[in-house]
C-alpha cells in the first residue's frame, strides 16, 4: 500500500520534471512560430500610435492577433445588436487588418523575397540526392555485405575510415576542384559531393547482412540475373533500412549549410538555409520576417519527422552501436 503510493508519487515527479524539460526543449520552436505570427502593427481607437507586439517589453507570449481578433469580433457583434453600423464596420475592418497583419510576413517572404525559389531548390536537391544515395549506397552496401570478391574488405575499410575525417578537411580542395570543373555557383556543386557521403554505405551494409542468403540463392536458381535479384529481392527486403537512410539523407541535405554558403553566390540558386542567412545579414528584416523564414524552413522537416518517426529511431539505433 505504502509502496504503491510512493510509486505514484515518483511518477508524478517524473512527469513534472520531464514536462519542464520538454517545455525548455520546444520553446525555441514555439517562439519561431509565435513571433512569425505576432501582430506587428496595431492601433485601436484609444491608442495614439500603432504598436508592434513583436518588439514588446515584456515580450508577448503568444500571437496577440488571437485575443484581439475575438475582442473586435465581440464588439462588432455588440455594435450590430445596438444598430451602430459605423462601429460595426470599424471593428470588422480591424478584424481584417489583424488577419492580414498576422500573416503579412509569410506573404512578403514569397512576394518580395525569393523564398519560394529557395524552397523549391531545397526540395528538389534534397529529393534528388536522397534517391540517388538510396540507389547508389544500397548497391554498394549489398555487394559489400553479400558478395565475396578480391578487395572487398580493403574497399570497405578505406571508405569507412574516411568517416573519421571531419568534413572541413575537404572544403578547400573541393572548392578548388569545383572551380576547375566549372561547377562553381551551380547546384551540381552541392549534389555531387552530397552523393559521395559514405555513411549510407556503412548503414546499408549493416542492414543487408540480415537478408538471408537462401533467398538470394533461390532467386539465382530461378534464373534471375544479378540486377534482377537486387531489384526484386534485395531492395524490397531492405525497405526499413532504406527508409532510415532516406530520412537521414534528406535531413542532412535539407539542413546543410557550410558548403552551400561557400559555393552558392546567386540569390536564385540559394537553398533555404543560405537564403535565411542572407535575409538575416541584410539587417533590414524584422524578427517577424526572419522567424517566418525560419518557420518555412522548419515545417517540412517537422512534417517528415512526424510521418516517419519510427524510422528515425530505427536509423539511429542501426547506424550507431552494433551489438
Amino acid at each position, binding site marked *: 500500500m505504502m509502496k504503491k503510493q510512493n510509486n505514484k508519487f515518483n511518477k508524478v515527479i517524473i512527469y513534472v520534471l520531464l514536462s519542464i524539460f520538454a517545455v525548455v526543449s520546444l520553446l525555441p520552436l514555439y*517562439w519561431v512560430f509565435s513571433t512569425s505570427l505576432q501582430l506587428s502593427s496595431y492601433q485601436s481607437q484609444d491608442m495614439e500610435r500603432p504598436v508592434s507586439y513583436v518588439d514588446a517589453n515584456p515580450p508577448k507570449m503568444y500571437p496577440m492577433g488571437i485575443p484581439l481578433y475575438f475582442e473586435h469580433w465581440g464588439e462588432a457583434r455588440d455594435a450590430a445588436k445596438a444598430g451602430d453600423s459605423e462601429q460595426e464596420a470599424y471593428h470588422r475592418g480591424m478584424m481584417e487588418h489583424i488577419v492580414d497583419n498576422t500573416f503579412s510576413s509569410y506573404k512578403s517572404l514569397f512576394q518580395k523575397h525569393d523564398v519560394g525559389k529557395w524552397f523549391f531548390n531545397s526540395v528538389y536537391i534534397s529529393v534528388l540526392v536522397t534517391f540517388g544515395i538510396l540507389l547508389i549506397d544500397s548497391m554498394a552496401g549489398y555487394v559489400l555485405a553479400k558478395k565475396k570478391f578480391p578487395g572487398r574488405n580493403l574497399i570497405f575499410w578505406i571508405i569507412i575510415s574516411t568517416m573519421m575525417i571531419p568534413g572541413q578537411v575537404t572544403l578547400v580542395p573541393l572548392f578548388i576542384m569545383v572551380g576547375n570543373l566549372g561547377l562553381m555557383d551551380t547546384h551540381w556543386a552541392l549534389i555531387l559531393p552530397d552523393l559521395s557521403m559514405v555513411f549510407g554505405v556503412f548503414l546499408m551494409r549493416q542492414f543487408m547482412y540480415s537478408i538471408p542468403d537462401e533467398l538470394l540463392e533461390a532467386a539465382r536458381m530461378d534464373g534471375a540475373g544479378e540486377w534482377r535479384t537486387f531489384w526484386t529481392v534485395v531492395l524490397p527486403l531492405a525497405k526499413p533500412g532504406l527508409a532510415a537512410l532516406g530520412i537521414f539523407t534528406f535531413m542532412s541535405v535539407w539542413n546543410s549549410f557550410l558548403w552551400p554558403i561557400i559555393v552558392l553566390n546567386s540569390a536564385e540558386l540559394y537553398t533555404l538555409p543560405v537564403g535565411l542567412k542572407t535575409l538575416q545579414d541584410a539587417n533590414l528584416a524584422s524578427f517577424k520576417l526572419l522567424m517566418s523564414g525560419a518557420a518555412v524552413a522548419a515545417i517540412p522537416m517537422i512534417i517528415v519527422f512526424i510521418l516517419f518517426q519510427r524510422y528515425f529511431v530505427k536509423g539511429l539505433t542501426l547506424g550507431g552501436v552494433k551489438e
Partner: protein
Amino acid sequence: MTQIPMGAVPKKETEKLKVLKKPNNNIFLQMKKNYSAYLFLLPKLILFTLFIAVPVVWAFVLSFQEYKVFGSEFAGFDNYIKVFESEAFRIALKNTLLFTVVTVPFGVISALVIASLIYALGKVSQSLFRSAFYLPTVTSMVIIAMVWRWMYNYEFGLFNYVLGWFGIEQINWLGQSTSALWALIIMQCLIPFGVGIIMYLASMGSISHSLYEAARIDGASSFKQWLHITIPLLKPTTLYLVLLSTIGSFQVFTQIIMMTGGGPGSATETLVHLIYKTGFRDFEFGLAAAQSVVLFVIILIFSIIQFRVLRHDE
C-alpha cells in the same frame, strides 16, 4: 594446385573434396567471376574517389604548399608554423575547447537523465516525450541559431525577460565579449541531445530484466539499481555518444556565423569558423588546409583518449 586424380576416389567423395578445396586462388579469375560486384560498387567508388578520397589527400598536400592558381609552391612546414604561431588560432582552439568541455558532458549526462526518466513511463508517454526531445534535433541549426539570436536580444528578447523573473538584470548576451561565448554554451546545453536520448532509450530496452529482479530481491533501491546496473551496462552507448558529440562540438560553426560572426572581437571564434574565414574570406588555401588538418588531428587525439579512458575500466 594439386589436382586429385579423378579416378582415385569414388564419385561422391570428389564432390565433397571440391567443396572442401579452396576456391580458385587466381585473383584475376576471381575478379572476373565477380565482375558484377564491381559494377554495383562502381558509382559509389567513382563519387567517393572524386569527391572524398582525392580531396582528403589533396588537403594534406595543400597544407604543405603555398597555393597559387598557376603552380603552387612547396612550402614545407610553413603553414603549420603559421598555424601554431598565430594568436587567432590559439584563441579559436581555446574557445572550441571550452565549448566542448562544457557542452559534451552536460549533453551526454542530461541525455542519460532524461532517457532514464522517460524509460520509467508507459509506452504512450515514452514516445510522446521522445518526440518532444527529438524534434528540435531535426530542425536545422540555422533556424535554431536565428531564434536564439532573437531570444538573446538585449531589449526585447525572451531570455532576459525570463531571467528578470529571478531578479537578474538584462544582459547583452551576444554583444559583449565576456558573455558571448557563454551565451552560445548555454544555448547548446539547452538544446536537447535528441540522438543521445533515443540511443540511451534503445540500449536500456536491451538490458535484461532479471538483473533488476535480482537487485530488488537484494533490497537495492531504484536509484542504486540505476547507479550500479543501468549506468555500467550503458557504457558502450555512453562511449559512442561522447565520441559523437565531441566530434560534432569541435566542428561548431553554424551558431557562430549566424549569431556572432566570431565576435565581439574574437570572443567566439572557433576552429571551423577560423578555417572558413581563412579559406573563403582571405583565400589563404594552404593555411586553411593546414588548419583543417590540425583540426582533424586534434579530433583524432581526443577520440583516442576518450576511447581509452571509457573502455579501460570496464
